[in-house]
């Protein structure tokens, strides 16, 4: 168990998954990033700079909030790791600050990023502004229409938003396009990937940059809980970065790890092994191998794959992956808002919906302790919730 969630070595393999499935033209860039990351991650100066920015700029550590009224209703002890309180409103900032510092260290002038809901795009635009880098964000045309506010935020932050008109015109196509663009501009541009996806070293590097969630939560649980370790550790899974960062803090404990996917984007549950966007993992695809579009109420979970490390954790049974319906998710969001005064992101509400269902059905025993990562705030979702209420 202790060999899980470690350095995946130069091949970037997590069991059968991971790797570096990119065109030859990107190999040197990936190698360069891997080398730079290994060097930076071993450099206390880099780590200090990162910690300082996460602290004085991004608002870390984030609190662990006991959800008192909801806990009482559910008969459990529910603790919320509050990534919604970070600057820009989701855990995405942890990763992006790390990668932007790395890009700067590598002498790059521009960050490229894909975005679906726009949270990662906003975070990238933010980190770029902070460090004086340029930012170019690829976003599906359909997502641009659906997430107008985040597009405006990126503009205000000075980022260029490039509409992607190919394929389904959503996140998956934005990834393709970002990679295509990256191929043509590796000299001055750094591809700032938003989840534990992509070619090695991204899945590992992003997990390491998100590890701060789990490590803080672990220490906070130790202070908060008599048993020091919660019975369950739960996080939503789109690509899987907030879950990976969370799980990393608890991998060596007895906590049961649960990743929650959207029913309509459940790669861990209904995906088959495949290769997409540079890595091998579980991928939603039709019988012929064409990648399917994911569909859920949460734009940030509309990705047809999961990070390779999650596929590995699933195969080995160390983590389990569950799905919830859009309907459960919206109800969970409203319930948390009305019991605790916290409007969580639709993405994060997936984790919550599972906890509610499990607690109410006895799947989680009464009296259990549950640590849930609230990956982001729901302000961005208010308009779409309106129609679902």
């Amino acid at each position, binding site marked *: 168990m202790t060999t899980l969630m470690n350095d995946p070595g130069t091949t970037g393999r997590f069991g059968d998954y991971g790797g*570096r499935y990119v*065109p030859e033209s990107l190999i040197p860039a990936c190698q360069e990033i891997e080398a730079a990351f290994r060097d930076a991650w071993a450099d206390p100066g880099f780590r200090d700079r990162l910690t300082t920015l996460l602290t004085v700029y991004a608002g870390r550590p984030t609190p662990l909030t006991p959800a008192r009224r909801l806990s009482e209703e559910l008969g459990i002890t529910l603790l919320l790791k509050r990534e919604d309180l970070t600057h820009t409103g989701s855990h995405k900032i942890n990763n992006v600050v790390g990668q932007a510092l790395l890009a700067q260290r590598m002498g790059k002038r521009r960050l490229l990023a894909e975005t679906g809901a726009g949270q990662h795009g906003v975070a990238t635009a933010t980190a770029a502004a902070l460090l004086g880098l340029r930012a170019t964000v690829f976003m599906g045309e359909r997502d641009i229409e659906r997430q107008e506010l985040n597009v405006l935020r990126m503009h205000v932050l000075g980022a260029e938003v490039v509409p992607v008109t190919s394929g389904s015109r959503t996140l998956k196509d934005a990834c393709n396009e970002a990679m295509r663009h990256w191929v043509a501009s590796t000299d001055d541009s750094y591809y700032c990937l938003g989840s534990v996806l992509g070619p090695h070293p991204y899945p590992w590097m992003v997990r390491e940059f998100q590890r701060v969630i789990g490590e803080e939560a672990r220490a906070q649980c130790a202070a908060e809980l008599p048993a020091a370790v919660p019975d369950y550790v739960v996080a939503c899974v789109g690509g899987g970065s907030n879950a990976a960062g969370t799980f990393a803090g608890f991998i060596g404990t007895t906590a049961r790890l649960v990743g929650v996917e959207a029913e309509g984007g459940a790669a861990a549950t209904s995906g088959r092994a495949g290769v*997409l966007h540079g890595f091998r993992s579980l991928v939603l695809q039709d019988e012929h191998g064409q990648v399917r579009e994911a569909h859920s109420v949460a734009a940030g979970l509309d990705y047809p794959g999961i990070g390779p490390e999650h596929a590995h954790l699933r195969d080995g049974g160390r983590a389990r992956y569950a799905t919830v319906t859009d309907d459960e998710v919206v109800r969970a969001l409203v319930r948390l808002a009305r019991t605790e005064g916290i409007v969580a992101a639709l993405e994060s509400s997936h984790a919550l919906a599972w906890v509610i269902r499990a607690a109410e059905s006895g799947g989680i025993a009464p009296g259990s302790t549950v640590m849930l990562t609230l990956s982001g705030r729901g302000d961005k979702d208010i308009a779409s919730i309106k129609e679902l209420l």
Partner: protein
Amino acid sequence: MTTLEESLLARRATGRLLVPYVTAGAAPGWTDVVRAYADAGADAVEIGFPFSDPMLDGVTIQEASDRAIARGTTVTAILDEVTALDVGVPLVAMTYGNLVFQRSGAEFCAALAASGLRGLIVPDVPLEECGELAGAAAKEGLDLVLLAAPSTPRPRLRDIAERSRGFVYALTRMGTTGERDEVPEQAARLGRDLKELTDRPVLFGFGVSSPRPAADLARHADGVVVASALMRRLLDGARPRELGEYAASIRRALDQGAR
């Protein structure tokens, strides 16, 4: 049976090599396009197996792939059509890892070989990831073509040149596929480097759009793969005959050589 590489080596002896491309299923009569290419003097034909997320392709081939998928094109259906197709020059499959590894690389290679294909190009399966696939391909007498890029450092270029089969696919530039007019400086360098490293045929691909630049490029290697320029015409409604004529015009330019 001669391999793709043997066949290309034989043809290289008499001139520059031309490998035109078509996305399988992109239009109803696509196999006629393959035929037309052969008739126009192609030395081999590259057949794209359409994938939903063609990371290395530009807009033209993306669109051709989308159309093909929308028309219900599957690997099985392509192989069925290809099996019946004997055009006198080797056929090379080009697709992405996810289709190749659907069941296993071995099964995929066996199926290709059974349908008479002679080579395989998988742009998102680079050197580090191709070991098993290369073995499976070799077993089936299928040449697994590797790509080399302007960014590829010298020692790595040597590995690629050594482990590639059929030919070495030299990317003219760092961008995705698509038509461009000038001959990039870096392409010339890459061609020279590869020619120094290997005796295998070296073909340029990506952005080879018209006769003159094709001929210019070919001077730095053994020939060219022409894709987007043809596929754009196909998307615009060109008939197989017209595509064949365009391929023939490149054939002529290659044969006349360049300045």
